[in-house]
């Protein structure tokens, strides 16, 4: 295992190095649009990495993570909206006109996503397997319809934000600066997730993935562990949503659409489930695929769809495992 570990470190370092110098290259090539695309990829990568925490390590197939992505985005959207128009937020017990500070908006986005995940998790973790997939999908769809039904926040048309969150000393409307902020957050989330995965808590998740009934007779309150993992995962996805709201300066229910959940899962699988960094690679892979194919034909989905089926049927380990030369079940 030792040699492939160092190869893994090498690959991770290479990925990080490319990400760090990317804005310079984009500017040198006089094509700053690359930075925007790369930021999008990083944000989706963050969401996919969070999904991997439960999908890859806890074997919980959540088909509803788009809900947390959207919730995170809407927290930023609502706070910005009220702050911009100087209106009191109606459904709170205190009088508050929102805030533009990233230090308020982003943690709040994580908390709200985490809290809703806790509620959804309590219900859906009463079941397993196919039920869990369908229930998470159904609850996500419920939240999607909930946002569509709120005319005050744009309903189906969504909400324009006019400006990005504020961090003292930085200008997030500058695409390079925003890119680096996102990169720092993604890196921090990666380090944090890796610690979690390698901790005792992460071991328990791994154990549940391999043999949940045995974990129970070994004395683990399995549902509590899974619920916590589900919540942490939703918080990361909520943070990604908050960043997405900033990236687009626009939020809409389409962020919460079921197909977004599907795409996040595809990213995890393409990149390599249970590797954390793999989903990031998967996000880059899927989104660049979409960019390239969309350049070829407007009907690019008719190519992507079969490719996806094909990769599920025949290529299981994911790209990252291939890069670091690791076997599927390690």
């Amino acid at each position: 295992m030792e040699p492939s570990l160092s190869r893994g470190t090498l690959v991770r370092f290479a990925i990080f190095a490319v990400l760090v110098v990317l804005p310079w290259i984009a500017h040198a090539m006089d094509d700053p649009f690359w930075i925007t695309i790369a930021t999008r990829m990083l944000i989706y990568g963050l969401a996919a990495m969070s999904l991997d925490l439960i999908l890859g390590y806890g074997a919980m197939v959540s088909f509803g993570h788009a809900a947390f992505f959207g919730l995170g985005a809407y927290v930023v959207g609502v706070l910005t909206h009220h702050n911009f128009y100087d209106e009191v937020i109606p459904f709170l017990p205190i009088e508050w006109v929102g805030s533009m500070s990233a230090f308020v908006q982003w943690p709040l986005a994580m908390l709200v996503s985490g809290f809703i995940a806790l509620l959804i998790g309590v219900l859906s973790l009463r079941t397993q397997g196919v039920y869990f997939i369908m229930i998470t999908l159904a609850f996500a769809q419920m939240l999607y319809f909930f946002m569509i039904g709120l005319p005050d926040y744009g309903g189906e048309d969504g909400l324009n934000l006019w400006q990005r969150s504020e961090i003292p000393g930085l200008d997030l409307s500058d695409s390079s600066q925003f890119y680096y902020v996102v990169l720092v957050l993604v890196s921090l989330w990666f380090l944090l997730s890796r610690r979690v995965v390698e901790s005792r808590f992460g071991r328990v998740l791994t154990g549940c993935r391999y043999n949940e009934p045995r974990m129970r007779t070994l004395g683990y309150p399995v549902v509590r562990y899974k619920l916590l993992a589900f919540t942490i995962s939703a918080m990361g996805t909520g943070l990604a949503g908050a960043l997405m709201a900033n990236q687009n300066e626009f939020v809409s229910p389409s962020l919460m659409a079921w197909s977004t959940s599907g795409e996040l899962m595809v990213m995890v699988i393409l990149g390599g489930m249970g590797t954390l960094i793999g989903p990031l690679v998967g996000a880059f892979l899927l989104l660049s695929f979409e960019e390239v194919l969309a350049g070829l034909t407007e009907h690019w989905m008719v190519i992507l769809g079969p490719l996806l089926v094909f990769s599920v049927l025949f290529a299981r380990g994911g790209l990252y495992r291939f890069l670091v030369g690791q076997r599927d079940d390690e």
Partner: protein
Amino acid sequence: MLFLEQLLNGVQLGMMLFLMAAGLTLIFGIMHLINLAHGSLYMVGAYFTATVTVMSGSFAIGLFGGCVAAACCGVLIELLAMRHLYHRDHLDQVLATFGIILTANEATKMIFGPQALFLNPPDWLSETVQILPDTPYPAYRLFVIISGIVVALFLRHLITHTRLGMLIRAGATHREMVTALGFNISLLFTVVFALGAGLAGLAGGLAGPLLAIEVGMGEQILILTFVVIIIGGIGSVKGALVAGLLVGIVDTLSRAFLPTLLKTMLPTASADALAGSVSSMAIYIVMALVLIVRPEGLYRAYGT
């Protein structure tokens, strides 16, 4: 009698959901396969029904064409992809069928164009019927309800009284036994898949005169169908019928009456703001309640 009319609308939606859920739940129960592309088969049924109806001039022929087309697509999908997924975990099944949805949606757009199609009910069903004195109700919707009842009776007969039904029941619990007795289990799977696909096609065809026929219609109903299956219990056709009706009625009635009800309880402004959201959430709240009381659904079949 607005209430009666809405109630019947709910039953009609419930029957559509039953047609979808019955096929999907059988496929779950027997093959342990989660098939997201079931909604695509519904869409195929709708498009083919519309096309064949226009070509032949007969809705009945069109509906038959829609069913057959969906069943054929089902067999094709089963042979090409599903067959390789029965022994995979649910995650793989979700992803592969997600890929099939993307393909089916885009292919439909390429063949039929991006704009929605509209289909009128056939002449003999375009009138209204007096269900009670002074209460007219569209004949076509009644036709949908009756179709659902006929299918329910047909499925009951099929499962309890035929050789195929016996194999379906046996295949769900004792797969090895069925194989050991010399039955071709993979043929059984293909047949069940085609049956489910045909029912989805029928649902799509019946939906044609009620809804816009467009890409994406399949996923709308698919997620509702999931809610039905969660409430009804996996593998149970009876559960699919009861839960289908429940979801259909709750959804229709809450959309029709909840906004007015909210206005009597809340100030107008907040009632308007919340009405749309709350009424679309009703069925999910029912689902959550069922999960609290009976996590495995109302009816649980065949020990899956």
